[in-house]
């Protein structure tokens, strides 16, 4: 795959595009308030995972509900390696977050290969059922290994510094003050936060989460956080984005000038840009045509010398790599990994995002990611105005996702991008 | 009597039928012949209600059938035996046969099925077996039998000879013309195999590229070498 990818890549054309996007988003990241950075981090994370879904569901035509589970693989590899390894095995380098992300991607490739080999033989509904089973069965696997994987309570992560190192104790104490941290930030004047925005963000913190991240001292082992870590997994997680909002302290300042959300967003944006670059080159290159050929007519593709199985497996591996990278970023954003965070709802929301945006489009994936992050925010704002109960507010976004999924499939199978494309065509042909 | 007037069908930009008119009288076989892509199958599928016509009408004994669903058309007495193996392999011979008249009162249905079993003794012998154990000719008999279960006044046969041995083809076509006479059926037979079809038909209709190019008595058309060379390519 590698040589053809290199030959076909339009490095000269695509690289400046993604560097520009990266610079733009990075600039945006330091300009906005921490809550916005946090949304940015989430959206970039979703986009990373959904680039993989575009390739898998859109181009290769395999409907997977297990990509949330593949994200979990990335998240857990990230957590376990960063919690347990001080140096890179064999190489001996000082361990840091970048290494964790790389290892997470590696884990994703391995998992994708295994599932892909299994899935390449399966037709539509069988594949969907199997991947759904993987998504559902995943928490049991984590629960099976309470020691290293933290069981059903998950693992708390410490907050890395910008240089990639870890500082466990600082993070602990700082997070405990998270409620006032947002105000501190506003007072510091470096980045003024409107009062209602700051209070709005702290509203989303449930009390247990504050104590959870504020568990004193060394959080390296699961046993230390049994009490604290229980809160995220004990809660039902209807929408991952909603849960993640409540699971992360907002406006945390660990050091002068260091804003946790900004750091998280910068990692997330960087990963998303790299993933987007790779995805675009794959989609526009030979491999993209191979995937589409196999999707549209596997027999004709086989007669043309393409192996349908290899094509399907490669789509799974690539999408799994992206999912794992996104999972690692997600772990950073939550500063936590646990079965609840990577549940079925996450897998389903990836599907929602990719279908809403447009199944075969990378830009559509970005639109889908923004919708996934934006919808709960819009709904909770509306709920505040209209005085809806929590029961409504917490579930309305999911309800709308489901409804949109049906409506999109019925009236606009191409999603938002499909609508835009047909609108554009209508405009241009009329003239 | 089946009367087709100015029937047109398009698939996107492609015109499959272009103002086709023809009359199928009762008691005889009318054969539609023509090369691949002449629009013969489209004509049959449109008459049976599987394809929506763009314009034009078809009337069965003065009652309009175009614009109605396939289910209703069968129930009003016009049955299509579609091209290829149109029996359902998972069902038994008897189940396949009975399908054709499930909506009829059970006494009538039983009478008709007894008649059909008399006509096709092989089917009676194998009534409890799955239909995919039958030979090709037997399956074609079963498909015709199923079409007869609705007690039709008009029978549409789409390429019944497809993939069958010549001897069996002759048998089946002779049976069809016998049916037309004995049961006073209007039979519209579509065939690529012109010689065989014209042998049992009273009237021949030649189609080419969605148009009716010639209507005449079967003998007349069979004798016309020029026509054969121009449109039938055989």
């Amino acid at each position: 795959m590698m040589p053809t990818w290199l030959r076909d890549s339009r490095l000269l054309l695509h690289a400046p595009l993604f560097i520009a996007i990266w610079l733009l988003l990075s600039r945006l990241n330091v300009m906005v308030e921490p809550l916005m950075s946090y949304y940015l981090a989430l959206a970039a994370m979703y986009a990373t995972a959904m680039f993989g879904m575009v390739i898998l569901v859109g181009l290769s035509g395999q409907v997977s509900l297990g990509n949330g589970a593949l994200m979990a693989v990335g998240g857990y590899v990230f957590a376990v390696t960063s919690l347990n390894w001080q140096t890179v095995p064999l190489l001996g380098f000082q361990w840091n977050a970048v290494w964790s992300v790389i290892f997470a991607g590696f884990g994703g490739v391995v998992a994708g290969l295994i599932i892909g080999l299994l899935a390449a033989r399966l037709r539509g509904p069988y594949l969907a059922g199997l991947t759904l089973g993987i998504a559902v069965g995943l928490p049991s696997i984590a629960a099976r290994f309470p020691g290293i994987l933290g069981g059903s309570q998950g693992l708390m992560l410490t907050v890395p510094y910008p240089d990639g190192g870890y500082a466990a104790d600082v993070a602990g104490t700082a997070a405990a003050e998270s409620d006032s941290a947002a105000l501190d930030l506003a007072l510091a004047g470096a980045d003024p936060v409107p009062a209602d925005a700051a209070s709005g963000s702290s509203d989303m913190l449930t009390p247990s989460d504050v104590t959870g991240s504020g568990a004193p001292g060394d959080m390296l082992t699961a046993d230390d956080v049994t009490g604290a870590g229980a809160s995220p997994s004990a809660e039902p997680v209807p929408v991952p984005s909603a849960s993640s909002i409540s699971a992360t302290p907002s406006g945390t300042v660990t050091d002068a000038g260091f804003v946790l959300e900004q750091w998280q967003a910068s990692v997330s944006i960087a990963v998303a840009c790299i993933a987007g670059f790779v995805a675009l080159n794959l989609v526009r290159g030979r491999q993209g045509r191979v995937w589409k050929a196999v999707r549209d007519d596997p027999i004709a593709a086989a007669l043309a010398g393409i192996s349908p199985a290899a094509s399907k497996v490669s789509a799974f591996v690539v999408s799994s790599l992206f999912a794992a990278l996104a999972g690692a970023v997600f772990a950073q954003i939550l500063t936590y990994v646990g079965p609840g965070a990577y549940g079925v709802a996450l897998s389903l929301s990836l599907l929602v995002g990719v279908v809403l945006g447009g199944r075969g489009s990378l830009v559509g994936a970005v639109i889908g990611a923004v919708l996934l992050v934006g919808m709960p925010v819009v709904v909770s704002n509306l709920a505040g105005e209209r005085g809806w109960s929590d029961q409504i507010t917490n579930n309305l976004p999911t309800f709308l996702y489901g409804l949109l999924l049906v409506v999109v499939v019925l009236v606009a199978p191409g999603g938002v991008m499909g609508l835009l494309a047909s609108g554009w065509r209508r405009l241009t042909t009329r003239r | 009597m089946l009367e087709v007037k100015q029937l047109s069908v398009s698939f996107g930009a492609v015109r499959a039928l272009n103002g086709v008119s023809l009359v199928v009288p009762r008691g005889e076989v009318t054969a539609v012949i023509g090369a691949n892509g002449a629009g013969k199958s489209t004509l049959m599928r449109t008459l049976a209600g599987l394809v929506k016509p763009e314009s034009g009408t078809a009337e069965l004994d003065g009652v309009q059938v175009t614009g109605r669903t396939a289910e209703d058309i069968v129930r009003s007495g016009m049955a299509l035996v579609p091209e290829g193996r149109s029996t359902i392999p998972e069902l038994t011979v008897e189940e396949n046969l009975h399908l054709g008249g499930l909506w009829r009162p059970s006494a009538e249905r039983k009478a008709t099925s007894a008649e059909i079993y008399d006509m096709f003794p092989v089917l009676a012998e194998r009534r409890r077996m799955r239909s995919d154990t039958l030979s090709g000719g037997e399956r074609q008999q079963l498909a015709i039998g199923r079409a007869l279960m609705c007690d039709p006044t008009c029978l549409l046969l789409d390429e019944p000879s497809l993939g069958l041995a010549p001897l069996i083809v002759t048998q089946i076509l002779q049976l069809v013309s016998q049916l037309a006479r004995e049961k006073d059926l209007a039979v519209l037979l579509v065939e690529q195999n012109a010689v065989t079809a014209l042998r049992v038909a009273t009237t021949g209709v030649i189609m080419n590229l969605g148009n009716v190019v010639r209507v005449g008595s079967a003998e007349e058309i069979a004798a016309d070498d020029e026509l054969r060379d121009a449109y039938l390519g055989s």
Partner: protein
Amino acid sequence: MTTFIDYLLGGFSSGAVIALFALALVLVWRSTRIVNFAQVGQAMFTTFIAFEVQQATGSWFLALLAGLVAGAVLGLIVYALVLRPVQRLDTSGSIIATFGVLISLQALAAMIWGGDPHSFPTPVANEGLEIGGRIWPISWYDVLVYAVTAVLVVALTLLFTRTNLGLSMRASAFNPEVAKLSGIRVNRMLAFGWALAGVVGAVAGVLIAPTASLSPNSFDILLIFAFTAAVVGGLDSLIGAVAFGIGTGLVLALVTGYGEAGDAPIIVLILLAVTLVVRPGGAFGRGKSRAV
């Protein structure tokens, strides 16, 4: 040895319910070649309706009846509004649409009834029966579950093999065009298949609710179990779905009994994966079981 028997007996009851869910999946598959991933969502929703009726009237049987009617209606609605239009599209479209229905039904239920589990009453005692001086892991309620399951399976089998309606449904499923050309109202038959599946799912929901407790997501895991049973049984076979549904229940009971409860989904997943690897079209896909 006695514990082994106890585990098995316990497994029968949950197996019967899994079998019913698997049966519902098979009914939909047979009628429209779609795996209805929303099936347990529909069952959850109708069970909530049954729960409301039970709370209002105090009668379990009225609740069951309400569940049945709601199941049929919901099945029809989902088919007519969502799946019938979608069938013209690709397979991915129908899979995504059923998940859309699942998500929105679950969220709707959570909006109406909240996320907390509700306890659903039983019409007869749910304590272990005492026979021969020891308490067995079978209650009168379990007996009721077996009886209802058995009645449903027999009734469905008779419907499909002995009635004109059943024949019409099978023909519509196997070859819609030939069915239409035979005068069968195919769309009605497909819709009836969905309604029937909705009824079977609703029964399964009401039966499992007392043991599983009732919440918007409490049936999720059952979807996987039922899907596994249906796929291993071949997706086309009523008998296969029932046999492997009960089999899945037994496996779960043994795993939970001898191992840890949390391992059950993994074992079922392995069962599913192995079946699909060996027979990608389901264990008893094509073949004689399809005619049943």
